[in-house]
């Protein structure tokens, strides 16, 4: 069987108009903004060495910030700005998705454009500049009719570099809520869907190459003063942009946006909710791969409509509570606290996805370790791994305080790889999730927490402020509330962790729904 017979290729292709369109839109906007800023700055600074040095230095520093970090930084920055603007001018704006992505990418694109524009302008022969003056040109006329046209080929080379950088880096805007070709890569990585990862990489590379080659055509046209080539390149770029944007423009505006965090269970649950909304005749899309803090703020500011969070996560991270309460009490209090932000806790799904310290069953039995308290005395000789968030979360601090835990070493890992790592003995203990199907698959055991350092983590459905009174939405999701037990969720997660066609979030969500119906 050819690898292309895998139905996941078809599924990936189905997402292409949406992802590619969004990717092109954010890239074009970022590049346009970058040019709009860089070109005048380069022109102003070309004869001012101090300003020029400062600008190029600043742009170089921006360049050294990793793309993902730059994008991540713009989110809280804009959030703060939006809050300021709301309190000063009475209107806010969305700090989610498009805006932070465009700003960060625009900043990212500035260095090559600035540098090449300045180099290009400085490279214009002094004799030509003098001739421009001598025939009676004003400085402005000299700039527009002589200097810029002559510098254009070098400037175009810079624009090409910037375009390729922006298109490549735009794949990293997925975690801050901007749909892009990165959605394939992030989703694929989370759900071990390598077809998606490959597809996303290929699509981004092909797009970057196509744009680069068309810009190269324009550049060579300018260099050789061939209008035909420059025009062909320009038409090609325009056609590409229109062709990728039209499908997303034509698409009916979707009403409901379902958010998902960065792990498998979230992909499955968001797919399940989107399916339920569609079944109820509501249009819905998913925004996946959002960071824990990003997703909550996005909901609070109505950028997404609904998502699943976990009571303990909100309790500890969002509300900075260090006390632990029994399950129902904590839920009740959380409901009140969320209501103050106009967020509706519409109900629990029925299972808990708690952080738990997990190790191989056989090893635990050998060492006589049943609880974290038992582990504490041996921890000094052991290593621990957790996901990217865990070690900076308050739960980890609470655990260490409660049990006096101190490990030999700690590592951060992609969640899906942790379980295999601990099963193979490469790591002694991991901070896993109780609903993860891999615990059963690798014959691992979750250690007890007798001192209740870790809060309860009920999976709860949260609704955005503007959806507080949306009966259609509540009705569509009602069949899920209280219906998903931990065993079902584990099995669903295990299925989704597979590496075949039946493991796509959509397929697993379908399976989950059928399973719920039978009960």
């Amino acid at each position: 069987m050819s690898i292309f017979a895998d139905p996941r290729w078809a599924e990936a292709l189905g997402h292409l108009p949406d992802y590619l369109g969004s990717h092109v839109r954010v890239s074009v906007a970022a590049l346009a903004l970058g040019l709009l800023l860089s070109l005048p700055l380069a022109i102003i600074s070309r004869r001012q060495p101090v300003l020029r040095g400062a600008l190029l230095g600043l742009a170089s520093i921006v360049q050294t910030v990793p793309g993902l970090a730059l994008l991540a930084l713009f989110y809280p920055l804009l959030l703060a700005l939006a809050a300021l603007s709301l309190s000063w001018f009475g209107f806010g704006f969305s700090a989610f998705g498009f805006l932070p992505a465009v700003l960060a990418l625009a900043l990212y694109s500035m260095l090559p454009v600035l540098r090449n524009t300045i180099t290009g302008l400085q490279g214009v022969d002094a004799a030509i500049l003098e001739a421009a003056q001598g025939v009676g040109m004003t400085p402005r006329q000299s700039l527009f009719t002589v200097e810029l046209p002559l510098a254009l080929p070098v400037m175009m080379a810079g624009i090409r570099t910037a375009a390729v950088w922006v298109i490549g880096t735009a794949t990293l805007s997925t975690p801050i809520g901007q749909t892009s070709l990165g959605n394939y890569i992030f989703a694929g990585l989370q759900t071990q869907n390598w077809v998606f990862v490959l597809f996303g990489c290929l699509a981004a590379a092909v797009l970057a190459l196509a744009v680069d080659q068309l810009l190269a055509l324009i550049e060579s046209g300018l260099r050789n003063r061939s209008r035909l080539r420059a025009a062909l390149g320009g038409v090609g770029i325009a056609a590409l942009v229109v062709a990728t944007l039209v499908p997303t423009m034509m698409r009916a505006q979707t009403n409901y946006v379902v958010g998902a965090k960065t792990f498998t269970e979230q992909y499955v649950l968001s797919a399940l909710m989107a399916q339920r909304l569609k079944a109820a005749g509501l249009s819905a899309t998913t925004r996946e791969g959002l960071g824990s803090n990003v997703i909550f703020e996005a909901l609070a500011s109505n950028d997404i409509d609904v998502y699943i969070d976990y009571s303990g996560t909100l309790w500890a991270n969002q509300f900075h509570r260090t006390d632990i309460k029994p399950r129902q009490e904590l839920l009740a209090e959380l409901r009140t606290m969320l209501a103050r932000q106009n967020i509706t806790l519409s109900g629990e799904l029925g299972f808990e996805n708690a952080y738990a310290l997990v190790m191989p069953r056989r090893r635990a039995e050998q060492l006589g370790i049943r609880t974290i308290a038992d582990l504490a005395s041996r921890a000094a000789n052991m290593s621990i791994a957790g996901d990217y968030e865990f070690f900076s979360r308050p739960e980890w601090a609470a655990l260490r305080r409660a049990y006096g835990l101190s490990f030999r070493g700690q590592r951060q890992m992609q969640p899906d790889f942790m379980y295999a790592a601990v099963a193979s003995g490469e790591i002694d203990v991991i901070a896993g999730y109780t609903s993860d199907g891999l615990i059963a698959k690798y014959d691992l055991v979750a250690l007890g927490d007798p001192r209740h350092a870790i809060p309860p983590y009920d999976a709860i459905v949260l609704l955005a402020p503007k959806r507080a009174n949306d009966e259609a939405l509540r009705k569509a999701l009602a069949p899920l509330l209280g219906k998903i037990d931990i065993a079902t969720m584990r099995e669903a997660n295990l299925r989704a962790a597979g590496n075949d066609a039946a493991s796509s979030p959509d397929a697993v969500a379908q399976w989950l729904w059928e399973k719920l119906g039978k009960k």
Partner: protein
Amino acid sequence: MSPPLIAYANVSKTFDGTRVIAVDDVSLDVAEGEFVAIVGGSGSGKTTLLRLANRLIEADAGSITIEGDDVRSVDPILLRRRIGYVFQSGGLFPHLTVAGNIGITPKLLGTAPAEISARVDELLDLVRLDRAPYRDRLPHELSGGQRQRVGVARALAARPRIVLMDEPFGALDPLTRDALGDDFRELHGKLGLTTVMITHDMTEAILLADRIAVMRGGKLLAQGTPAELSESGDAYVGELLRTPRRQAERLGALLPREGAA
């Protein structure tokens, strides 16, 4: 006698603070219709002197009048548009066609495109370039002599009364140089121009100019017709004149009087 069209009066210019004196107290009048060559070695200040006239460089002291106006009282942009300027090796804009280069000053002056187009053809005829093959060529597709012809046409496009030339024929081969020099001298007469040309070549100056001004170290050493110059007691001027004379004598002896070689 009519007032001079170009008049330098006690003009000085220093660069780099006061360390380099490029032009040192120079006074020079150029009458209407005159062809004056400024001769000097490199660093003599001759190029600076020329550029002071259209304010590519501003004078530190003294005054310069062009067509009766003190240049300091005139907008330098407008001043440059009414003076033709031929640059060393053309100074053509590499991204503009021959027609675009020639028509640039009329275009800056707001002349209608059709009028510019007609003027370009007229100028191509004037500098002896065929209209059809050259009009739409880019400078890099021309020979050095053709480029300089375009440079001359560009300088003449806005019908200036004054043309300034900065070593216009310096980089050309001897035959082209000779032909171009003769052609320009003819244009100078036909159009009633007033021309100031810079050159380091005394032979060229003697053959083309009515009057010659000799510069050295920023100072104007002597000025006058070739005959007047040869009366000058200055050693440097004498040396400059001796070279072409000696060359002419040796050439006369070496080449047969009549016929081609």
